[in-house]
């Protein structure tokens, strides 16, 4: 049992981060906090991929003399792409938040909702 | 001209007429000439086509195949020919009438009226000549949509409300039930074409066939079988020529025509008789006949009374179809024609009364007969034909319907037919009697009221004479009806 828990520690971290992120997105009314939650959520997936690529005793995947076992480089490459996507998403989200702040004067979800429906 | 071109011309001519009407909208005289010309041409062509069909010419025409195995296709077949003949001949008469009506009544949006009218006729012809259920369904829906602007013509809240009921019930039943029936037929047999003797035999468990028949009976809302009859009284908000041609002839007859087609060519008379498919449903139709007659008696509004009378008479045809015996089917087919000529006369008269005196209620008609003798004479003839007395055409179809009930030993149904005839007398005959023999209400003088415009009178004279002629010379319709039934 302990072995199972300890042996899969990377997955536990991923799951905890994922839940923290999703919960933040859902529960917070502050638009910036939602974006932060979204980032945590995405990062958990990055961890998932990167830890998948690890090979026990494997070295970093750079060809060198005398090393037989390498970690799998493909997940790293994939996640590089995903990180770029994530950064772009965050940038766009923050830009939207700025525009929302400019036109509503607030970034609290319930206040925005009230402003739209009191018109 | 080959039969194919003839048929295509009949289908396209009303559409071309509609376009012509829109183009010539700025000159009412030319516009009306276009209407009359296309109507007259269609009538001539339909008669030519009927003559050639009775000579034994037959053919089919496939336009396009939207679904694998199901084409938009046309064919000439006896029942369709009969229906097309009725609709084609009456369009000319109605055109003459409606020009007088619309002008006498100073209606708005006349261009839209005449154009939508022409499109409705095109759709009716499409229904008459369709070679399979899909084609029929296509034109069936087109007819509903093309008549919608006619029903809501007045643009008043009442017209809008009537239009809602009209569209709601007709589209609701056709999409919810009729289409389902077609799809079930398709999934059972893999085909939806009309074939003498039916296509369902051997493909469907007789126990379920009744349910499928119910889908068609109620799905074909245009047949106005209760409880889906409400659209027909609702449609009476339309101008009277629309009520006359479309809601006494084209639209409602399209409904019972479709029902007959389904009975004859999808189920097949043999199949229905040997498996008692319609055993329970026939009482719904019988009830419609009686209830609608009773409701008609309570209506003081003349058009509403005629509308309920139509509901009742339509169920005669449905009844004949569901008896599925030879005499019953012949009676049903002939009633399409006979009722058309009689009921259109009644509506023409109602419209003439409205234009001349602005009266809509039966109770206001006392003594009006002396001011408008021709109108009420026509009304009288129409009434007698509906009741089914000789020497009027309506007698023949009732005769065969009654014979059908006897043939299948359904004596209770025979009683229904007889009682209904008595009810017809009770709700229709008092109208001309009141007009001719009662004294006007005190203080009313009809000195300023004269007959309606000449073109309207002409139309009434033509249709009421037709009622008489059809008694002595029912031959074309009888032969067509016989051919349609003889196939099974």
């Amino acid at each position, binding site marked *: 049992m302990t072995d199972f828990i300890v042996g899969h520690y990377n997955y536990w971290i991923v799951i905890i981060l994922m839940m923290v992120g999703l919960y933040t997105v859902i529960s917070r009314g502050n638009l910036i906090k939602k974006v932060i939650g*979204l980032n945590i959520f995405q990062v958990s997936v990055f961890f998932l*991929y990167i830890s998948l690529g690890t090979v026990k005793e494997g070295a970093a995947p750079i060809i060198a003399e005398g090393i037989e076992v390498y970690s799998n480089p493909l997940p790293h490459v994939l996640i590089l792409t995903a990180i770029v996507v994530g950064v772009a998403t965050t940038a766009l*989200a923050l830009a939207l938040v700025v525009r929302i702040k400019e036109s509503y004067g607030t970034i609290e979800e319930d206040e925005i909702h009230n402003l739209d429906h009191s018109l | 001209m080959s039969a194919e071109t003839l048929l295509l011309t009949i289908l396209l001519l009303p559409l071309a007429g509609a376009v012509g009407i829109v183009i010539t909208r700025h000159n009412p005289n030319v516009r009306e000439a276009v209407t009359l010309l296309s109507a007259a041409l269609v009538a001539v062509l339909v008669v030519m086509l009927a003559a050639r069909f009775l000579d034994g010419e037959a053919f089919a025409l496939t336009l*396009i195949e*939207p*679904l694998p195995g199901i084409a938009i296709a046309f064919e000439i077949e006896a029942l369709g020919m009969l229906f097309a003949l009725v609709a084609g001949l009456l369009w000319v008469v109605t055109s003459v009438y409606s020009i007088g009506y619309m002008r006498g009544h100073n209606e708005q949006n006349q261009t839209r009226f005449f154009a939508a009218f022409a499109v409705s006729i095109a759709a009716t012809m499409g229904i008459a000549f369709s070679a399979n259920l899909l084609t029929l369904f296509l034109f069936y829906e087109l007819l509903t949509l093309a008549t919608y602007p006619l029903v809501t013509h007045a643009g008043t809240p009442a017209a809008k409300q009537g239009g809602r009921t009209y569209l709601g019930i007709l589209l609701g039943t056709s*999409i919810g039930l009729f289409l389902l029936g077609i799809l*079930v037929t398709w999934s059972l047999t893999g085909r939806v074409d009309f074939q003498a003797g039916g296509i369902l035999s051997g493909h469907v468990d007789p126990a379920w066939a009744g349910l499928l028949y119910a889908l068609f009976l109620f799905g074909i809302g245009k047949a106005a079988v209760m409880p889906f009859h409400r659209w027909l009284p609702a449609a009476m908000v339309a101008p009277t020529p629309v009520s006359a041609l479309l809601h006494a002839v084209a639209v409602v007859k399209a409904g019972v025509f479709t029902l007959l087609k389904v009975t004859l060519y999808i189920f097949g008379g043999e199949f229905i008789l040997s498996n008692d498919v319609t055993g329970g449903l026939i009482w719904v139709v019988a009830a419609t006949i009686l209830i609608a007659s009773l409701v008609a008696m309570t209506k003081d509004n003349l058009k509403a009374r005629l509308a309920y009378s139509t509901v009742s008479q339509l169920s005669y045809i449905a009844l004949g179809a569901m008896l599925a015996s030879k005499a019953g089917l012949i009676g049903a087919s002939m009633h399409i024609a006979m009722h058309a000529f009689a009921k259109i006369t009644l509506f023409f008269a109602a419209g003439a009364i409205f234009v001349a005196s602005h009266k809509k209620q039966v109770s206001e008609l006392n003594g009006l007969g002396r001011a408008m003798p021709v109108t009420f004479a026509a009304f009288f003839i129409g009434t007698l034909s509906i009741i089914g007395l000789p020497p009027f055409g309506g007698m023949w179809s009732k005769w065969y319907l009654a014979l059908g009930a006897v043939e299948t030993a359904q004596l209770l149904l025979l009683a229904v037919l007889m009682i209904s005839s008595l009810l017809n007398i009770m709700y229709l005959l008092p109208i001309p009697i009141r007009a001719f023999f009662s004294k006007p209400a005190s203080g009313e003088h009809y000195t300023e009221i004269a007959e309606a415009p000449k073109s309207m009178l002409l139309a009434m004279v033509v249709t009421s004479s037709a009622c008489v002629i059809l008694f002595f010379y029912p031959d074309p319709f009888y032969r067509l009806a016989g051919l349609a039934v003889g196939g099974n």
Partner: protein
Amino acid sequence: MEDHISLLLVVVPLIAAPVVAVLPRGRSAWAVAFIVAAACAVLAGMQLWAVLTEGAISYELGGWAPPWGIEYRIDAVNAFVALIVAAIAAITLPYALLSVEREIPEEKIPLFYSAMLLCLTGLLGITQTGDIFNVFVFLEISSLASYALISLGRDRQAFTAAYQYLIMGTIGATFYLIGVGLIYSQTGSLNMQDLATLLPGVLHLKTVETGFAFIMIGIALKLALFPLHLWLPNAYTYAPSVVTVFLAATATKVAVYVMLRILGTVFPQGFALTTPADELFIVAGIAGIVIASVYAIYQQNVKRLLAYSSVAQVGYMALGIGFASAAGVTAALVHLFNHALMKGALFMAVGAIIYRIGACRMDQIHGLGRAMPWTFGAIVIGGLSLVGVPGTAGFISKWYLVVAALEQEAWISVAVILMGSLLAVVYVGKLIEALYFKPVTDTGTAVSEAPLLLLVPTWGLVFANVYFGLNTDLTVGVAEKAAAILGGMKP
């Protein structure tokens, strides 16, 4: 060049996007975007033709052989979807010229077209690629572009709508990414064809099932499958007219394609039947059709009404997928195409109204049907197609769906499909009544018919609705071929 069609479809709009962004004037940006979209439509047509005549195309990106390199693999399914996307783009852009000039500030127009091309790149990329991770990348390219496009709407609600879509869209894409990761961890491959041979060996693993579930949920979010549709009504309502037309006709369609691809090619056919997925599709489809249609009836904004109708239409496609039969998949694909036509036409017509009066609330459009007869005619015919009246494309879809449902004796689904049509009668009827029968509200100025440049593309789609309602050689023919490839997922 012919060998490179598949790649050109993605690369041409991708390269054009930054070029358009730096062009100085709106009109020149529009011209380039239009040429690119038209070129893509031609290329997509050629590609479909090539696939239909010569069979599937495999294109190795950079010459790296699959499964190591990225492969673009084109068969009848994705060639068909790519043609829909490119053709809609090509027909939307002529419409865009005037509509965009009216709704977007001049200095932003080049950027607008740039984002539009990026969105097109992403959508076409999804259809072209044969690599499931690559799908994620293109999905995000198209999504990011569409968030930006939606936020360009004139109301400030556009910002919140875009933000909401961004949050939900990103969650969806990330779910998809998780699923892909889990599957990769068990198979070591990302190539669809390769996965198709590797996955059957590992299907029993919980990891693979979990991955499958993540992917399904992720795409269902993008698809706006009820009840994951919450982003869609706001996004469609507040986006600029052109964006609504384009997204409504393409974005959800591409998501449907991905769904079908994962179910039919990547996972062994029949796998979905061993999971609750197919039942869930049917339940979600039924709920979506009924609830979204009822919602549509009560909407006070025309665009929002049509948006809810879109959610309902997605329900039809979900039903087709859920039937998990060849007939069901055919129906879903046919509806995918036909719905693009009808919603495209309808949103274009509404855009024309917005062009004239600057709004589209129900109480603002009273009596406009008389002032704008051609626009009104387009709404009527588009609406009839939505209802599924015979002679329109919508009828063909409904026919195939009901036949597929009858085949399985799924009577509830049959009833729901027909009921959906009746609910459509109600909301389309409400729209037509407002446009035609309600007395004109006095705005002070007379409204005239929309300009020709808006009407011609609108009526192009309207005619397509009728044409593909009568001649179904292309739609049904290709959909049946495609369904044969996706195999109908029979166990």
